[in-house]
């Protein structure tokens, strides 16, 4: 297989030594072919240090002994992947959805991945891949994994016992998800630097780097490692202009390491409203609403970055002034949410109309956006402020931060912008949204008039950026 790719033919020399004799002169001094040879012979994607050692060995001693040493190592009884076959993918576009294929989560990232690869299903050259259990290399997904990657319907499948190492060569590698696993990032990094494949990735945000104070222990290190893996990539498509600013700042930090870093371009995610059946809508109404006061919804997990304490503060001031509304938080318990729960319980104890709901179906969420008079999302940092786009696509005005992706998403109208670090400004924004009917009418009209942009446009534009020579389907 290796011989065919390298030499363009398989002359069947009949023995391993015969193959090596043919291959050695062809790969000598060619970094890309050396990477391919290493991956193919060891049946393991090399890490940076392993590859450097191999490359130095062939420079000092010649390609033939260096290849022979690899073969000898691969034949050892306990060599990793000793019985694993290989396949060299030269005519498919390899899309690495390892985590999405196996997870039970349906977070924002998985949603972007799933919507995108669903749109790419019609492209025959797309090959969905994941990693083996030890993160030694890529492999074709099993049918249920593929199902889970696309629809999230079969999480935590047992890994296939027999697998074939898929080695992309001379093609494009797409990483549409966040890779944090150490072995995986190490080998992806080496692939990006030495394999000659075009390497592309979706950049979501750099929160663990730029807002490290808002993430849990260990997260920043894992993310720094992810970033290091991307340093030798060719292209990053970020989900917003704000995320592009973050990634470009990181790229500038690479200058001291002498690395140019990838090309970085923003491609704003779409916000597509989902339909809700009349029955579900009525269910949601009874679950969310108490009485007739206007509903304010705040969507997001309870963690300091989401600034929910500022929302509670603003709401308390408004209630004390006699402004009538009910407040519902929709979101799970994130990191460090104790202070939020304490304040919430205090306000509830004082009889304020506020509650927090964590287990939420899509239909309840979309009903909530439609039932809301106004939503509020004064986050301190977002790669893409999903609730802003969702609220607007449902036609509901939103009070949100006056910078970053939140401002970007709402730049077409429908939003009241506030400084999220100034609690009193959050209060003023919510107050205006609740008490100024003219303003509310104007913002609602703006939201309703926003042009709809769907996943198919996003996925097409992404494909054009990652695989620029391709034709639209």
């Amino acid at each position, binding site marked *: 297989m290796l011989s065919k790719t390298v030499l363009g033919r398989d002359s069947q020399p009949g023995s391993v030594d015969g193959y090596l004799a043919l291959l050695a002169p062809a790969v000598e001094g060619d970094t890309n072919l050396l990477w391919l040879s290493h991956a193919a012979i060891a049946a393991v994607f090399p890490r940076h240090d392993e590859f450097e050692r191999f490359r130095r060995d062939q420079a000092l001693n010649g390609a033939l002994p260096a290849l022979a040493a690899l073969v000898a190592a691969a034949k050892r009884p306990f060599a990793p992947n000793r019985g694993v076959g290989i396949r060299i993918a030269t005519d498919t576009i390899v899309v690495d959805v390892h985590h999405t294929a196996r997870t039970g989560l349906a*977070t924002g990232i998985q949603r972007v991945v799933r919507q995108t690869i669903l749109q790419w299903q019609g492209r025959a050259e797309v090959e969905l891949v994941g990693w083996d259990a030890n993160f030694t290399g890529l492999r074709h997904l099993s049918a249920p994994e593929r199902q889970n990657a696309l629809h999230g319907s079969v999480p935590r499948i047992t890994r296939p016992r027999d697998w074939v190492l898929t080695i992309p060569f001379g093609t494009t590698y797409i990483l549409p998800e966040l890779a944090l696993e150490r072995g995986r990032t190490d080998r992806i990094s080496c692939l990006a630097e030495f394999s000659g494949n075009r390497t592309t990735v979706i950049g979501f*945000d750099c929160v663990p780097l730029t807002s490290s104070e808002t993430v849990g222990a260990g997260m920043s290190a894992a993310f720094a490692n992810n970033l290091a893996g991307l340093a030798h990539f060719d292209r990053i498509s970020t989900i917003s202009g704000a995320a592009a600013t973050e990634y470009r700042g990181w790229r500038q930090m690479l200058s001291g390491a002498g690395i140019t870093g990838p090309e970085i371009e923003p491609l704003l995610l779409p916000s597509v409203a989902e339909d809700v059946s009349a029955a579900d809508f009525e269910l949601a109404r009874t679950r969310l609403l108490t009485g007739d006061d206007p509903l304010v919804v705040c969507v997001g997990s309870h963690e300091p970055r989401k600034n929910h304490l500022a929302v509670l503060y603003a709401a308390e001031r408004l209630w004390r002034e006699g402004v009538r509304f009910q407040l519902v938080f929709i979101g799970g318990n994130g990191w460090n949410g104790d202070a939020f729960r304490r304040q919430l319980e205090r306000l509830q104890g004082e009889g304020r109309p506020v509650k927090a709901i964590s287990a939420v179906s899509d239909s309840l969420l979309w009903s909530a956006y439609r039932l809301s008079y106004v939503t509020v999302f004064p986050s301190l940092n977002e790669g893409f402020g999903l609730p802003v786009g969702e609220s607007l696509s449902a036609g509901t005005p939103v009070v949100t931060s006056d910078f970053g992706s939140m401002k970007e998403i709402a730049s077409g109208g429908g939003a009241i912008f506030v400084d999220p670090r100034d609690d009193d400004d959050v209060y003023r924004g919510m107050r205006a949204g609740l008490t100024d009917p003219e303003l509310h009418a104007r913002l609602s009209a703006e939201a309703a008039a926003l042009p709809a942009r769907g996943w198919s446009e996003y996925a097409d534009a992404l494909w054009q950026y990652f695989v620029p020579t391709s034709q639209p389907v």
Partner: protein
Amino acid sequence: MAALEERVAELEASRDGLQAELDAILNRATDRWLSAANFESDALAAMQQTVSWRVTKPLRVVRGLRPGDITGSISGRLASRRDG
């Protein structure tokens, strides 16, 4: 005139008395807080010296780190849609 002055003096005395009472309340609250803060610092330090606090450290670290954290900003809350 004298009656008026007397009345003013009386009111002033009563004002001062009320003021002193308010002062005492504030000072007592502050003293109470100060002793509690002093005490709790020592108690917390003592608790952190205990074996159980030390052996549960890994647990507390793990509890601080959840799947929602691992996935950047647009992730956390939607995780709860399924998990919650």
